[in-house]
């Protein structure tokens, strides 16, 4: 330091990129080799070390003659004279570039991996990734993705430490869109799915690669010294590329850098794939949410038995607030909430019906009243289905509840009307029937007379009219589940005999034959069971106009009795057989003659049988007659719901 001369060993000269023996030992030579940004900090540190009498330890950048930058790590010791003035500085330097680069690459790998697994918005993630790269292994980093529609490469992210340079690059790209036919760079990687790696790019290479003077100028301005381009591969398909460029840092890329770049690209690919899947699921979810939000009813899902306090509502659509005034939160935070707001009169039944659906693992419909937050009642029709686990056990239910208050009101008005109309119709019929009977008495003594015959027919028709009115009233009640029943123990055989006797009296061509018997008395509504039998036998006669026999069979099996009514008439085509028990359903077949009736008899009969806990069905073939049957428990212990 006194003589202002420096001595470097041969190895030290090689570390600095010089040929051994070429270093002349001047400070200027050294400071020319050091990166301009690092010269001042070094000077500063050295002065401080001398001041504090400490060793000098540092790390800085130097330029090699090939223009690449190397990192030098140094440790030096100062020797002082007796006055404390530094006289000599002795130290060792070594090239730390590779280790430094490796550390940067590792740091990039760790941070990039963290980012890629932290978000599902891949456009934003790729931008962060590019930013991260330019703070570690690259000066430029860009991510390009192939546009599925146009086939061109879209630049989804580009980063450089200086925003001005990004602007310049974007402008450049606008003027020179990427040429996908090129046999180098992003185009080639996209096509081959293989990475492209230029460890170090010399000016000669730029001259060779540039297609014209203008491009060469551009390359030179960019100052690339190394390039790594790696593919983004999703489901075996190359969908884009990430390019890392070394420029100002003069970093010389190593195989290790390539490995890291490939690893990050594969992790980015995975992140993109996940993100795409997630977005697809989200889109689907949004679609479903939209659908659910537009259902004019309460869509819901719950876990647990519907009649137990542990039942938890898992989902309920926003419509619930509109319908009942309770918020979605109130529904989700109170166990078994649906049942707590059912009208007290309907609660027991609603719980039972829901539990039946849950335990039967099927779907079902139930009607009940819900109380709104403000205390009004709303009629709902709940269509629900059991939710099963993978073993097939019921674990919950889901469904939709529609507000049917308006419909119920209309039905009530219709029922009131039918009830009133039937009442009003019965009043004149009462007089007509009474007068007809009075006249009958007058002519009774001469049964062969024409007036007597006519009056008999008139009375039959009046009775038919009365039956039709009763049927209308019953159909209206059955639809609301309001048919009245009075159970009693009675002998089915006697009832059958009575019914047959009554019908035989008015059947002109048919003989009604009874077969079999039921030994025990049955517990049911005698009038209603008689009504069902009358309906089936009347139908049998009506639909076998050219035949002369109807067979009524009674039997019993497994505590159930069965009544079958067989005719030998026109039969019922299969397609009508399921719907024949529906209200107002009539079998319309071409070339069929029209049969009188309202199409409600079988509906009422079916309802009566069902309400007794029984079953009703038909076996028939077109042109080959029909057998209608019903069966029910002989002595039902079950309460018949009124």
């Amino acid at each position, binding site marked *: 330091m006194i003589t202002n001369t420096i001595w470097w060993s041969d190895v030290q000269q090689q570390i600095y990129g010089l040929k051994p023996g070429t270093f002349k030992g001047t400070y200027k030579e050294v400071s020319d080799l050091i990166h301009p940004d690092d010269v001042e900090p070094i000077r500063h540190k050295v002065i401080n070390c001398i001041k504090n009498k400490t060793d000098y330890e540092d790390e800085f950048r130097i330029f090699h003659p090939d223009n690449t930058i190397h990192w030098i790590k140094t440790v030096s010791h100062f020797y002082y004279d007796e006055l404390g003035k530094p006289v000599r500085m002795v130290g060792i330097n070594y090239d730390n570039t590779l280790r430094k680069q490796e550390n940067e690459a590792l740091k990039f790998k760790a941070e990039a991996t963290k980012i890629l697994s932290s978000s599902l918005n891949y456009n934003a993630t790729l931008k962060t990734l590019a930013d991260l790269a330019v703070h570690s292994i690259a000066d430029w980093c860009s991510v390009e993705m192939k546009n599925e529609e146009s086939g061109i490469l879209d630049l989804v992210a580009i980063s450089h430490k200086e925003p001005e340079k990004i602007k310049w690059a974007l402008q450049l790209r606008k003027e020179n869109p990427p040429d996908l036919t090129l046999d180098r760079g992003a185009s080639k990687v996209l096509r081959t799915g293989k990475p492209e790696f230029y460890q170090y790019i010399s000016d000669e290479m730029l001259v060779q690669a540039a297609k014209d003077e203008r491009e060469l100028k551009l390359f030179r301005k960019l100052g690339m010294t190394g390039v790594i381009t790696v593919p983004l591969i999703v489901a075996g398909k190359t969908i884009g590329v990430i390019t890392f460029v070394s420029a100002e840092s003069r970093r010389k890329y190593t195989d290790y850098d390539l490995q890291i770049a490939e690893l990050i690209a594969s992790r980015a690919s995975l992140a993109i794939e996940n993100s795409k899947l997630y977005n697809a699921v989200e889109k689907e979810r949004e679609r479903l949410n939209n659908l659910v939000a537009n259902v004019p009813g309460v869509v819901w899902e719950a876990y647990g038995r519907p009649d137990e306090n542990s039942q938890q509502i898992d989902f309920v659509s926003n419509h619930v607030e509109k319908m009942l005034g309770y918020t979605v939160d109130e529904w989700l935070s109170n166990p078994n909430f649906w049942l707590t707001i059912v009208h007290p009169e309907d609660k027991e039944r609603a719980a039972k019906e829901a539990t039946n659906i849950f335990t039967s693992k099927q779907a079902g419909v139930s009607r009940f009243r819900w109380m709104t937050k403000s205390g009004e009642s709303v009629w709902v029709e709940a269509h629900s289905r059991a939710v099963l686990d993978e073993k097939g056990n019921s674990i919950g239910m889901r469904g939709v509840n529609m507000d049917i208050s308006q419909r119920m009101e209309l039905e009530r008005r219709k029922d009131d009307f039918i009830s009133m109309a039937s009442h009003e119709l019965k009043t004149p019929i009462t007089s007509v029937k009474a007068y007809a009977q009075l006249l009958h008495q007058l002519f009774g003594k001469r049964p062969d007379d024409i007036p007597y015959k006519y009056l008999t027919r008139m009375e039959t028709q009046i009775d038919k009219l009365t039956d039709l009115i009763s049927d209308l009233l019953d159909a209206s009640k059955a639809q609301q589940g309001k048919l009245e029943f*009075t159970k009693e123990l009675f002998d089915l055989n006697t009832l059958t005999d009575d019914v047959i006797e009554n019908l035989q009296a008015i059947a002109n061509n048919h003989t009604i034959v009874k077969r079999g018997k039921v030994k025990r008395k049955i517990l049911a509504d005698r009038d209603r069971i008689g009504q069902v039998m009358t309906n089936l036998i009347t139908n049998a006669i009506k639909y076998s106009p050219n035949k002369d026999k109807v067979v009524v069979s009674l039997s019993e099996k497994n505590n159930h009795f069965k009544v079958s009514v067989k005719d030998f008439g026109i039969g019922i085509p299969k397609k009508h057989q399921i719907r024949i028990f529906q209200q107002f359903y009539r079998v319309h077949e071409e070339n069929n003659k029209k049969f009188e009736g309202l199409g409600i008899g079988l509906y009422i009969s079916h309802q009566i049988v069902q309400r007794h806990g029984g079953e009703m069905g038909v076996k028939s073939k077109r042109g080959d007659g029909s057998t209608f049957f019903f069966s029910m428990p002989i002595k039902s212990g079950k309460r018949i719901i009124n």
Partner: protein
Amino acid sequence: MKKVLVIDDDQTIMEVMKIVLEEEGYTVLVDSKGTYFSKKSNPLPDIILLDLLLKGEDGREICKTIKADTRTSHIPIIIVSAHTSKEVEKAVGEAGADSYLTKPFDIHKLLEKVAQFT
């Protein structure tokens, strides 16, 4: 001669009941408003045929009033109504009537019922 009081607001039904019952030898008293017993001088009938649905009056209430009055409580009341049998059965129980007949009735059944209670 047994007296039958018919309480019904339908004139035609009243007429035809009168014919049927008088032919069998009953004396028929008629009341279309359910106010027969408010006039104390009216003779007490042996049986009452009461319609459930009168204009502005509920047959059930008329029945209850008759059955609550010691002067008339012994008189059998047959409800005659165009309601369904189940509904009338219920009304008979509620109002304390003795029996019922649904409209349209068979005149022979009407006479049977009246004979049964007189």
